[in-house]
């Protein structure tokens, strides 16, 4: 199902002159809209106003007012008061706490905070207030319908490139899954491409799930590679080949030579960072030199330079205990690699060694079947056992409905609490379980100072829930992303309203719109 045979055509139709949409738009229009994505800085960006034609005047007015009222540029201060506040870093919830937001950032969260004069006060009494959920591994925004090839940008079987692939231009902020997931309290997601004809999938991004056109929180946040069964298959049939391909690729990146004079007065090698003031990457300049003895395209080799230098994370999907150890061993040869393990179903078997290496893990929460020979020891206790051994573990959805259904992340975390009551199992405490879907994945991606918790200075991604956020019956009541109140509407909620009464009235359902 995930396999692709052809590249979709990406034909942007251009934006509508600063008049972009908010959350809920019929899909037919979405499909007609091309992907338009610019590289964005890691900074608060002002949200555009939702003012497009085709909505009822009232809804339009309300939406515009709501956004106007909360646009960070207005320097508004918001105080969410009276709720049970979960900071998201593993600390105890604070009853009757206040979350203060200003200019799209968290000012403070806790008890006994005074509400500044002029602040917009949101009463959250009897509610839970948490940071938005961070989906630790996903393909959200890359897919509209998995089985519709043209709407699926997860992988590129026909591409000549691998490591150079950058998902950022493919992320569609108006994919239905973004609005649907946002309504379930997911505010940020790690978005990875999938491998096609190489062990290198390419560079993934961290995105927000806001209802505007600017989704990218950090482009090229990491390189994603496969080193287990999948990697062996992409490498021609064996893990040994995958490891040689990896080493060769890093060697080709290391051996890149900037042109003499191009990056300064002397010849530079890729093992040292390029100078900050260079407009262009020196290894791509016209007279940059390179050995003839290479497998990778120049673009792919250049893309691996920041990995080699430790400036870009290397996310490695492995499941088997021995594959995990082989991955950790890469640090001996390439000491500057900043590794993150993805998957690691058998991580509990080598948990102490993962902890000793200081490598964080993004794991599936509930994998408990020997679905492959690299997951024979899979158990729902994996996350809890790794955590007990001192491993930093966040939860992701690895090959598990990761393009559309990251909204079950809270349910998964709740299950890890549940097994704590089953003898022999290792679960997580509630606080740790919540951190595993907020601060931990953010920290694993090097963004702990930006997202994933309500600690001061973090981006104001805040969710109000009508109960325990990990519980099945709980719903989201309000979501802010970067301090901007978000719509919780989507085409699913619209279909629900249309079919509240299945029988037609005076006119067919096609005339029923809210």
């Amino acid at each position: 199902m995930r396999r692709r045979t052809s590249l979709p055509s990406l034909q942007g139709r251009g934006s509508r002159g600063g008049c972009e949409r908010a959350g809920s738009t019929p899909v037919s229009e979405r499909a007609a809209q091309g992907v338009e994505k610019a590289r964005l800085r890691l900074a608060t960006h002002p949200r555009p106003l939702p003012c497009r034609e085709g909505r009822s005047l009232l809804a339009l007015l309300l939406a515009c007012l709501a956004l106007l009222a909360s646009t960070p540029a207005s320097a508004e201060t918001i105080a969410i008061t009276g709720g049970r506040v979960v900071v998201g870093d593993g600390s105890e919830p604070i009853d009757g706490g206040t979350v203060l937001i200003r200019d799209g950032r968290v000012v403070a969260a806790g008890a006994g905070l005074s509400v500044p004069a002029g602040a917009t006060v949101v009463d959250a009494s009897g509610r839970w207030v948490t940071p938005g959920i961070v989906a630790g591994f996903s393909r959200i925004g890359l897919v509209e319908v998995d089985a519709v090839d043209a709407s699926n940008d997860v992988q590129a079987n026909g591409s000549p490139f691998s490591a150079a692939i950058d998902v950022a231009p493919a992320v569609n902020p108006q994919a239905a899954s973004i609005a649907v997931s946002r309504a379930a309290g997911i505010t940020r997601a790690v978005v990875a491409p999938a491998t096609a004809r190489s062990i290198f999938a390419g560079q993934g991004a961290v995105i927000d799930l806001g209802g505007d056109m600017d989704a990218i929180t950090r482009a090229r946040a990491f390189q994603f590679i496969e080193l287990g069964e999948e990697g062996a298959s992409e490498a021609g049939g064996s893990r040994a080949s995958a490891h040689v391909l990896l080493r060769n690729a890093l060697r080709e990146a290391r051996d890149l030579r900037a042109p003499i004079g191009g990056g300064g007065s002397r010849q530079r090698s890729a093992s040292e960072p390029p100078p900050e003031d260079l407009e262009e990457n020196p290894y791509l300049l016209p007279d940059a030199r390179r050995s003839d003895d290479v497998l990778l395209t120049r673009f792919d080799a250049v893309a691996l330079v920041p990995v080699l230098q430790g400036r870009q994370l290397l996310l490695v999907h492995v499941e088997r205990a021995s594959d995990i150890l082989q991955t950790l061993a890469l640090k001996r040869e390439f000491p500057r690699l900043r590794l993150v393990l993805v998957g690691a179903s058998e991580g509990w078997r080598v948990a102490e060694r993962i902890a000793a290496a200081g490598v964080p893990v993004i794991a599936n929460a509930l994998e408990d079947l020997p679905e492959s020979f690299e997951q024979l020891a899979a158990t729902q206790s994996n996350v809890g056992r790794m955590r007990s051994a001192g491993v930093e573990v966040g939860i992701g959805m690895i090959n598990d409905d990761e393009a559309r259904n990251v909204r079950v992340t809270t349910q998964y975390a709740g299950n890890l609490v549940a097994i704590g009551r089953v003898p022999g199992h290792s679960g997580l405490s509630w606080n740790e379980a919540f951190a595993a879907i907020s601060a931990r994945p953010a920290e694993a991606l090097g963004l702990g100072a930006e997202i994933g918790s309500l600690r001061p200075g973090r981006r104001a991604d805040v969710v109000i829930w009508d109960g325990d956020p990990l519980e099945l019956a709980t719903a989201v009541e309000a979501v802010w992303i970067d301090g901007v109140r978000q719509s919780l509407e989507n085409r699913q909620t619209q279909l629900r309203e249309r079919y509240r009464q299945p029988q037609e009235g005076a006119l067919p359902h096609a005339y029923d719109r809210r």
Partner: protein
Amino acid sequence: MKHRRAAAALAVALLAACANPESQAQSASAQPPPAPRYEPPADPYPSTYRAYPGAPTAITGATVYDGEGGRIDNGVVVMVDGRIQAVGGPDTPIPDGAVRIDGTGRWVTPGVIDVHSHLGDYPSPGVEAHSDGNEVTGPVRPEVWAEHSVWPQDPGFSRALANGGVTTLQVLPGSANLFGGRAVTLRNVPARTMQQMRFPGAPRGLKMACGENPKRVYGGRNQMPQTRMGNIALMRQTWQRAAEYRTRRARDANTPRDLALETLAEVLDGDILVHNHCYRADEMAIMLDMAREFGFRIANFHHAVEAYKIPDLLRDSETCASMWADWWGFKMEAYDAINENIPLVHNAGACAIVHSDDPNGIQRLNQEAAKALADGRRMGIAIADEVAWRWLSYNPARALGIAEETGSLRAGKRADVVLWNGDPFSVYTRPQQVWIDGALLYDMNDPQRRPVSDFELGQPGEGDVK
């Protein structure tokens, strides 16, 4: 090596042919002596399931959902000789010598029944050699039986038992074909053979599939069906052939046996229940008309993602809809999924079922029901927890034709019982103990009551909590 094996197989076949008196007779003379007509057994591959022994057991003080919509607080459930003996309030008599289990603060429900599983047919590990769930070789394959692919050593059965409280499941063939073959209902017990798992007396099912899968798979081979109208045309043509075959067989017992049409004739006889993979509302409506055209009944639409658009049609035709809580969008026909599908179907008076189609999902069907229930309540559909449990046991039992035997806690029924260590609609709850026919087959406090399949022996993680 391969050649040698093929030659050996041919030799065996020849020997068998020589040993077969019928084929000898045909080749020997033009005037064969009247051979005694062979009557196949009415139920080939019959169930050899035997209930495992269990002690008379009484659970007291628990919140009991009876599976049909009833609830008893501080309730008592008594199991004797593999059957439910009594379900009632705190003064329910408990036989002398019965094992007493304190269910205070816990919940008792009927075992969960999954109407849509491929456990055994697509087992773990999911390697090519284990891919036995779909005979994709033609769009009409009613002659294959899912039970003939079931690998009883699939570790997934034990996960469904221990984490999901699943005591009965239907294993279906896959959905590439319009007619995918016969489905089988299994008791979720570890066994050496499939026959030891077959639910005694349970009717078999026929898997049919609408929509994208058949037209994609066969259309991609430039053969029929390539369109939805092609799907319907080939289905109708096949039903017509089945009706004619059935008439011929009734008239002339010597009509050559056709195993494919035989399955369909048994559907027309009402002995096999139709389970129809069908996502879209408009296609379900067409299938209901087709059933009327050829005189069969559809017991259950599976993956009925758009059931909420036609709950009136489902109610009026007494057809169940089996649904996920929140799976959506993986293909076009799943694009219009909504979270309130299950409660909307229930609320219209139709038969709603939560199903899995997945070795992971089957471990959390109670949680899927809980999500749907909560979403329904938020849109104003008030359904009590104990009523929602019908989606997990009684309605699936009806759809499988086994409601007389299981699916609710009624005196005389099979003692398929789950004791949950809390509210089963909470994410924090797991099965504490699971009984099948009164035999304790899972106990979270007892590592000895945790099945370990042959495949898992000697592997990393053998016997671990899962």
